[in-house]
C-alpha cells in the first residue's frame, strides 16, 4: 500500500528562523544572539546521507527483486528473467500509453513528470525552429528527423546553430533511435561484449544529407560528421573528410582527432605503420595548436594495445603516459585498461604491471571519464586469475571496486558475472578451502553471484582434494537451486566425492549423502519429458547411489535401485561396480531376503559377472535356503555351487 509512509512533523517550536520579533524591552547588556547561517544542501543531499549508512546485505537479493523466498531469483537465468519481466511490464505500459493517449489525460503526479506525458505528434502547421531545438535537447531522434523534414518541405529557414545541433545528434546516434534511459534493466543485461566491431554507419542518411546541404561546411560540421563516421566505423570516408578538412585548413576539434586515432588499426596494417600514423595525427594536432585531452591518451593507448607483444609497444605505452602526465592529463581507468592489455598478453611473458598500476588508483573514488572505464575491473581480475594467480592482488582489486561508489564502474551484468567468476576461481585455487567457503562463498553466493557450472566444478574439485566433504551438502543444495543438476559431469563429481570419502559409520553425513544420492536419483527419474538433452542412468551411477543409500542402511531405496538395474537393463548403460552389488547382497542377507538376493545374483550372471557363483555360495552359507530357492540358484549358477559349499 502506498499510503503515508512517513509524516515529518516540522515543529519549529524553538522559534528559530521564522520570526525574529524580539521584545522591545530586551536588555541590551545581554549576550548577542548569533544564529548561524544554514548549511546549503541540494534536494537529495539528505537522502544521499541517509543512504550512505546502508550497505549491501549479503543475505538479500538486489533490491529490484521482491524480498520473498518465492520471488527471489535463484539462478543467473532467473535473475535475468525476473528483471526483464519487470522491464517488459514497463514497456507494455509505455506501449499502452502510446496507443491510447486519450485515456491518459489525467495528471496524477505533482510536480508533473515529463516522461509520463503522452508523446507529442507533430504536424506541418505547428513545427517551428523552437520545437526542433526542444526535440534535439530531449534526444528524440525520430521526432527531430521528422520535424526537420517538415521544415524543409515548408521551406522554413533553419538557423546554423540548430542545424549543427541536429547534425551532432544524428552523427552521435547514427540516425537511430536510442534505448530510452528508463529501461535500465535492458541496459544492464544487454550483452555489450557481443557488439561487433563492424561498419554500422548508415550511408546516405539524413546526417550526410544535412552535411551536404551546408554550403561551405565549417570546422564544427566537419568535426561532427567525421566523429560520427569514425565512431560507427565508416573509416575510409571519415579519413577522406578529415583530409578534406585539413586541405581546407579547417581546425577540427580534439575529439575528431581522437576518433581518427581510434580507428587507426582499420587503416594501417603493420604495427610500425600504425605507430607512425598516430604520430602523424599527434603532430597535426600540435601544428593546429589543438590541446590533447584524456580521449587522445586513451585512443593512443588503445592503438598501442593492438600492437602485439613487441617490446616497442610497451615502451610506447610508457612514453605516452609520461608525455601526457607532463601535459597534466590524469589517466583514467580506461587508460590503465589499455596498459594492462598491452602488457599482459595471453601467450606473452608474465608481467606484474598491475602491481605498479594499483598504487596510482587505490583508495580513490573514480568516476566515469571514458566509456571504456568499465572494462578495467573485469580485465584486472582476469589478469589476477589467469596471468598472475595472485590472491592478494585480487583482493586489492576487489577492495578498490568496493571503495566509495566505484561499484558503478563494474559495467553491466555480463562484466559483473565474469568479474566474480575470475575472483571466485582465483581465491578458490589459492585460499584455504575453509576460509574460502566462509569469507567468499557464503557471502557472495547466491545473491551477489551465482557460480556457473564450471566454477562449481572447480569448488567440487577443491573439496575432493581437501577431503572437506562436510561442505558437500551445502554445495549440493546450491546446485539444486541454481539448476546445475542437469549436468552429468557435476553429478558424477558429486557422486565420486561421496564414494571416495567415506564418512564414519556414526557420522550424520551418511544420512546427508544418502539424501544427496537420492536427490540425484529422483532428479534423473523425474526429468521433464520435454527436455532435449535427457540425462540417462549409467550402471556405475546407479551402483554409486546404491552404495550411498546402503551406507545409510536404507534398504528400501537400494531395492528400488536394484529393480531399476534389473528391469532397465537395456536403457541403463554399463554395469555397476561389484562393491555396490556385494554391499546389496550383504544387506539382503542381513534383512533375510533370499528372493531379492537371488534376483541380484540373476542380475550378476545376466551382466556377465564371473563372481555370481561366489555370491551364491555366500548366500547359501549365510542363510538357510529352502528347496525352491536352492533350485532357482542352481538354475542360475549351476548345481555345482552346492558342492563347493561343502
Amino acid at each position, binding site marked *: 500500500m502506498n499510503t503515508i509512509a512517513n*509524516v515529518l512533523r516540522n515543529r519549529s517550536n524553538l522559534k528559530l528562523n521564522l520570526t525574529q520579533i524580539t*521584545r522591545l524591552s530586551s536588555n541590551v547588556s545581554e549576550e548577542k544572539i548569533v544564529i548561524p547561517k544554514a*548549511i546549503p544542501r541540494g534536494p537529495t543531499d539528505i537522502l544521499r546521507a*541517509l543512504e550512505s549508512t546502508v550497505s549491501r546485505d549479503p*543475505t538479500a537479493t538486489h533490491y529490484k527483486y521482491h*524480498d520473498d*523466498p518465492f520471488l527471489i531469483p535463484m539462478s543467473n537465468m532467473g535473475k535475468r528473467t525476473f528483471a526483464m519481466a519487470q522491464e517488459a511490464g514497463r514497456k507494455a505500459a509505455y506501449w499502452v500509453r502510446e496507443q491510447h493517449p486519450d485515456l491518459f489525460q489525467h495528471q496524477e*503526479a*505533482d510536480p508533473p513528470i515529463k516522461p509520463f506525458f503522452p508523446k507529442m505528434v507533430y504536424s506541418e502547421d505547428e513545427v517551428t525552429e523552437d520545437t526542433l531545438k526542444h526535440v534535439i535537447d530531449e534526444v528524440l531522434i525520430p521526432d527531430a528527423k521528422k520535424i526537420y523534414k517538415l521544415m524543409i518541405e515548408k521551406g522554413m529557414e533553419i538557423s546554423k546553430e540548430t542545424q549543427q545541433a541536429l547534425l551532432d545528434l544524428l552523427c552521435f546516434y547514427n540516425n537511430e533511435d536510442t534505448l530510452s534511459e528508463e529501461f535500465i534493466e535492458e541496459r544492464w543485461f544487454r550483452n555489450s561484449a557481443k557488439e561487433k566491431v563492424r561498419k554500422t554507419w548508415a550511408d546516405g542518411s539524413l546526417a550526410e544529407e544535412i552535411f551536404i546541404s551546408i554550403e561551405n561546411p565549417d570546422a564544427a560540421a566537419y568535426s561532427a560528421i567525421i566523429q560520427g563516421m569514425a565512431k560507427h566505423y565508416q573509416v575510409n570516408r571519415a579519413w577522406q573528410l578529415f583530409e578534406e578538412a585539413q586541405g581546407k585548413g579547417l581546425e577540427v576539434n580534439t575529439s575528431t582527432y581522437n576518433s581518427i586515432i581510434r580507428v587507426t588499426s582499420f587503416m594501417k596494417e603493420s604495427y610500425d605503420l600504425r605507430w607512425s600514423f598516430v604520430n602523424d595525427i599527434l603532430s597535426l594536432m600540435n601544428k593546429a595548436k589543438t590541446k590533447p585531452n584524456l580521449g587522445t591518451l586513451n585512443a593512443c593507448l588503445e592503438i598501442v594495445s593492438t600492437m602485439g607483444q613487441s617490446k616497442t609497444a610497451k615502451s610506447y605505452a610508457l612514453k605516452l603516459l609520461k608525455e601526457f602526465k607532463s601535459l597534466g592529463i590524469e589517466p583514467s581507468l580506461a587508460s590503465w585498461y589499455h596498459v594492462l592489455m598491452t602488457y599482459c598478453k595471453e601467450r606473452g611473458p608474465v608481467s606484474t604491471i598491475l602491481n605498479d598500476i594499483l598504487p596510482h588508483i587505490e583508495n580513490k573514488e573514480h568516476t566515469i571519464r571514458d566509456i571504456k572505464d568499465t572494462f578495467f575491473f573485469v580485465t584486472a581480475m582476469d589478469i589476477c586469475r589467469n596471468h598472475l594467480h595472485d590472491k592478494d592482488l585480487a583482493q586489492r582489486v576487489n577492495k578498490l571496486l568496493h571503495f566509495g561508489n566505484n561499484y558503478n564502474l563494474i559495467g553491466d551484468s555480463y562484466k559483473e558475472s565474469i568479474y566474480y567468476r575470475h575472483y571466485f576461481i582465483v581465491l578458490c585455487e589459492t585460499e584455504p578451502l575453509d576460509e574460502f567457503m566462509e569469507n567468499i562463498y557464503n557471502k557472495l553466493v547466491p545473491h551477489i553471484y551465482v557460480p556457473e557450472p564450471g566454477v562449481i566444478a572447480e569448488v567440487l574439485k577443491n573439496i575432493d582434494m581437501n577431503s572437506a566433504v562436510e561442505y558437500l551438502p551445502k554445495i549440493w543444495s546450491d546446485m539444486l537451486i541454481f539448476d546445475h543438476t542437469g549436468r552429468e559431469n557435476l553429478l558424477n563429481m558429486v557422486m565420486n566425492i561421496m564414494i571416495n570419502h567415506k564418512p564414519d559409520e556414526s557420522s550424520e553425513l551418511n544420512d546427508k549423502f544418502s539424501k544427496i544420492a537420492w536427490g540425484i536419483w529422483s532428479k534423473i527419474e523425474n526429468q521433464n519429458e520435454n527436455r532435449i538433452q535427457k540425462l540417462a542412468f549409467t550402471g556405475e551411477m546407479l551402483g554409486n547411489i546404491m552404495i550411498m543409500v546402503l551406507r545409510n542402511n536404507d534398504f528400501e531405496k537400494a531395492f528400488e535401485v536394484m529393480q531399476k538395474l534389473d528391469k532397465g537393463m537395456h536403457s541403463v548403460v554399463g554395469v555397476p561396480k561389484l562393491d555396490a552389488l556385494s554391499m546389496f547382497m550383504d544387506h539382503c542377507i542381513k534383512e533375510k531376503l533370499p528372493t531379492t538376493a537371488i534376483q541380484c545374483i540373476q542380475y550378476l550372471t545376466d551382466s556377465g559377472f564371473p563372481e555370481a557363483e561366489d555370491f551364491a555360495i555366500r548366500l547359501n552359507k549365510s542363510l538357510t535356503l529352502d528347496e525352491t530357492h536352492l533350485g532357482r540358484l542352481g538354475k542360475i549358477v549351476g548345481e555345482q555351487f552346492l558342492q563347493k559349499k561343502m
Partner: protein
Amino acid sequence: MSVITRILDKNVVKQLPKRAAAYYSNKPNIEEDIGEFRVLYLKTSKAQAFTKKKYQKPEVLPPRSNEMPVDQNWGNVWPGPRTFHPATVPLPLRQGYVSKGSPPDKYANAELMKIPNFLHLTPPVIERQCAALKKFCTPWPKALSNDELCEKHFPFEVISSNYCHSSPSIRDPMARIVTIKFKLNDLKFDEKSRDKYLRLVGDRYNSETGYVTIVTDRCPTQKQNYDYAMYLVTALYHESWNVEAWEELKTEADMEKYIWENNESKKSVEKLFGKNSEDIAESKQYANAVINFMNEGESDYTLANYGDSVRILLGLPAKTNVL
C-alpha cells in the same frame, strides 16, 4: 471426404494419443467404434479421466533469516519502512489470538503484516543516521541556553507540518496549515486595547495558559497561510488600538463593569471631604469595597466589607457586636 477422414483418423491416432482422444471421443469402449469411420463425440461426459500433468513443486529457497549471522548489521537488512516479512525477520514472533493454544507464529500471519512496524528504526540505525545528518546541522546559539531565553527573544511559535508519501504527488493538503502561538502578555496594551483585542480574538485566547493561537488554512500554500497569519497578528494588534468615534458615546449604562472613578460615589466622597479623592487616605479601600460590592453583587461579605470601609472612611468606631 472419406480420404480426409482417414488421414485425420491416422493423424489423430498417431499424434494425439491420450489428450485428443479424451477430448473428442469419450465413449468408454473406443475399440468398438474403430471400424472404417470413427465416431466423433462432441459432448464430453463427466466420467472422462484426464491424465493430469504431475505438479512439480518448484524449488524454493529456505527463509533467508536462517542464514543471517548474529552479528549482522540489521540496518542493511531492513533499511526502510516496509510490511513485516517472516522470511526476512529472524525473530520468533507470535501475534494474534486463537481460542486454544499459543498465538500463531510469524509465517502467513496477517496480524503481523497489518500493524506498522519500526524495524527500520532501531537505536543503532538512528544513531548512524544522526551521525550522517550531522554535517547539515549548525551549532545552537550560545546566547539561547535555556527555554526562558528562547521564549523571551523569540516569542512567536510557528507550527507547520510536512508530509512524505510514496505517491506520484508530493503535495499534501494538510501541509498548508500554519499555526501561530504567542503569549498575550508579550504584546503592549492598555486596558482598553487589551479588552478590544480579547474581544477580537475570541476563543483563540486561552486564559489559562495566556496563549493566543491563530490557525490559518484558507490559502492553498503554506507560505501564503503564514503570510496571512502574520497579517492577522499585525492587523489585530493595530485594530485593538484604534478608537472609533462611536466608542466615545459609551455611557455609564453601557459599561460592562462598575468603575469607581467614573461614578457618583467618587464625586460624593470628594464633595464630603472637599478635596480630591487621591488626597484622602482612606478613599482607596473605600473604592475597592464599592467596586467589589457593585461588581460581585450583594452578599453578606461584600456588604459587611462595605460597612467597615465606610466606618474607616468617616472615622467612626468599628462596629461592635451588638445583639
